[in-house]
């Protein structure tokens, strides 16, 4: 009898508890947000960009987006274009739905806004004026003609000191160059990649002029186009 009344009491209180749930917060049941309505920068960055651009925008295999110099170098319109349409011919995908990606324009804007808020710093260049983000075209281009010969010399003078020796010479390897765009090279040379130790255009060996940057990229670019890469033979003897 004692047992029965105890159990009954227990059940009754549980029932009361259940009745009280009407007042539990409704957040109890998380509302499902369709993926195209997510506009939180961190959520967007972490699902779409983190793998290549690194957690928090740096230390990833691709460009260090959290570098304040890079953020200062590139304007919103350019970012919007790159993120929306990708960088054709490279592994940077197009994200805008209009270009076959999965992000809405609002989401692309949210990413840009978030990057600015989190990663921009006021005046990262101090006194210096960096070369333009893109290689100038039109009238400006005349003052900055690309000179492959000169580029090669500049490369020897400014880059080879660090990029020499076995593996680091890869920068001039056609295989590497086949995978990276001129623009990416240019961005790296100008803004640097502080996360992996690549200096910006003002490194120890002296500051590079806009003309120098253009020539170095032209030199590297010439190595890419001049050498054909053929597929290595796949050895049939391989066990797997």
């Amino acid at each position, binding site marked *: 009898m004692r047992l029965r009344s105890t159990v009954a009491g227990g059940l009754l209180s549980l029932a009361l508890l259940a009745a009280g749930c009407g007042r539990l917060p409704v957040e109890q049941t998380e509302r*499902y947000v369709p993926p195209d309505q997510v506009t939180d920068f961190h959520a967007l960055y972490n*699902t779409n960009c983190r793998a290549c651009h690194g957690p928090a925008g740096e230390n990833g295999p691709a460009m260090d987006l959290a570098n304040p110099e890079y953020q200062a170098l590139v304007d919103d319109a350019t970012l919007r274009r790159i993120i929306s349409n990708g960088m054709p011919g490279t592994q940077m995908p197009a994200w805008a739905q209009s270009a076959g990606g999965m992000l809405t324009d609002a989401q692309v804007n949210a990413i840009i806004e978030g990057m600015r808020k989190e990663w921009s710093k006021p005046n990262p260049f101090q006194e210096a004026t960096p070369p333009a983000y893109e290689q100038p075209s039109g009238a400006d281009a005349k003052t900055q003609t690309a000179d492959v010969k000169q580029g090669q010399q500049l490369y020897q003078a400014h880059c080879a000191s660090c990029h020499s020796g076995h593996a680091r010479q890869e920068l001039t390897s056609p295989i590497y160059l086949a995978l990276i765009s001129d623009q990416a090279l240019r961005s790296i040379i100008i803004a640097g990649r502080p996360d992996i130790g690549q200096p910006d255009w003002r490194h120890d060996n002296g500051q590079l002029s806009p003309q120098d940057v253009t020539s170095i990229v032209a030199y590297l670019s010439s190595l890419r186009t001049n050498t054909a*890469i053929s597929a290595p033979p796949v050895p049939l003897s391989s066990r797997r």
Partner: protein
Amino acid sequence: MPRMKRDAKTVYNWLERRLQIEGPVKDAALHKVPRSTASWWYVFGSAAFTLLLLQVVTGILLALVYSPTAANAWNSLNVLNHQIPLGWFIRALHGWGSNFMVAIVFIHMCQVFLFGAYKFPRELTWIVGVFLLLMTLGMAFTGQVLRFDQDAYWGLGIGVFMMSRVPLIGGALVHFLLGGPNISGATLSRFFTLHVFVIPGLLLSFAMVHVWMVLKLGINEWPMPGRLVRRETYIAIYNRLSHEDGIPFVPGAFWKDLIFSGAIVAAVAVCAMVFGPYGPGGMPNPSIIQTTPKPDFPFLWIFAILAYLPPALETPVILVAPILAIAGLLALPFVAGEGEKSWHRRPIAVLTVSFIAVAWGVFTHLGTYTPWSPHMNAWSSDAIPARYTHSATPLVREGAVVFQAKQCRNCHEIEGVGGQRGPALDDVATRMTPDEMRYKVVTGGGNMPAFGKNLSPAEVEALVAFLETLHPANERPAYDGALRETSTHNGSPPPVTGSK
């Protein structure tokens, strides 16, 4: 007061005069059962019945709001979740009630099996019970489809996939089930009809028959090792047990049923409160591919088995196994209708149940974390650990980018993140030489897609350069010197060890 009592009595008598139900009810309640059946082991059947009633009640409440059309089903569930007071709780009760019911029905069946309760004269009770089990599963399955979200699609997808394997009529069956060639509004109407009219109707009538037989044939006595069941003598022995040492069913055995059923309903309520309702998850929009849908709990094991079956075995297993299983269950009381009831002397029965329980547990566990299905977001969300990109070379970093961009990560883990369809690649460099990697990436094999056509030669080289750096810091990569000499060709970089 006495006057009211008198009136009530008059009404009761008027009704009883015509219905004449008092006698049978009293008989049923007070009939004698063997003392040994008043056991906590004998409470699962009544709990299953209680859950069935709970499902009926909550189901009716849900049907007041739910709208079984493709356009509105999903929305009406959200209305229930967020706009109707306690709507979410009713949904949660119904969803958890369903899980509990499936579980209790299974437990009930195992108990009946282990106690030999299916033996003479209760063969038909068992057979009806098998159908009750199938219908309970049918309810769980059709109910999940009514949610009409992405998980529902998945569950249905599996069902359809199994059906489409039926020789000759597979296509027609699928068409019949879905009300068309694919999942659509017509599918939903069909499943609504099944879930709300057809199966519950059958389920309730079968349950009545089942209970009727339990009442008529008596509750199975506690099995004693050595007391064998024989057609000629069983009834006499049972009658002696229940009359000489019997107790009235109510309250003698019934109070345990009541308490247990109450506890189960309370457990459902607690789960409903704590875990909330099921979904609805993502809208069933096939263009949203960033999801990893999963069927509901009772079907996870099927999901797992399907994923592990080698392709050649799929059709035979899918088509033959369920038929064999059901036929086996139905045949059981005819094959073993007499003899020993006690589990102490039926080692094979005990082993079978344990084996099935363990296998089910393992497959369900595997089902909850789906190692085989690619992680759709891994390629763009799972970071390459900094130690691989930090001190790497430019080509290795490009390789890492290719690795992500070509979605290798969706199937391959690095440092515990990524898909698990293929092997983790943390130490792949200690297992494979660069040529073997190249070969594997280009030609695939064994569930690894062949990437040959989708990768440029430069991409392959970069990938291999990256894969070569994947080894524990203190272990050397597999170094195939002879092959390495010959594979340094037209200007490709010198060997990259990545451990500079």
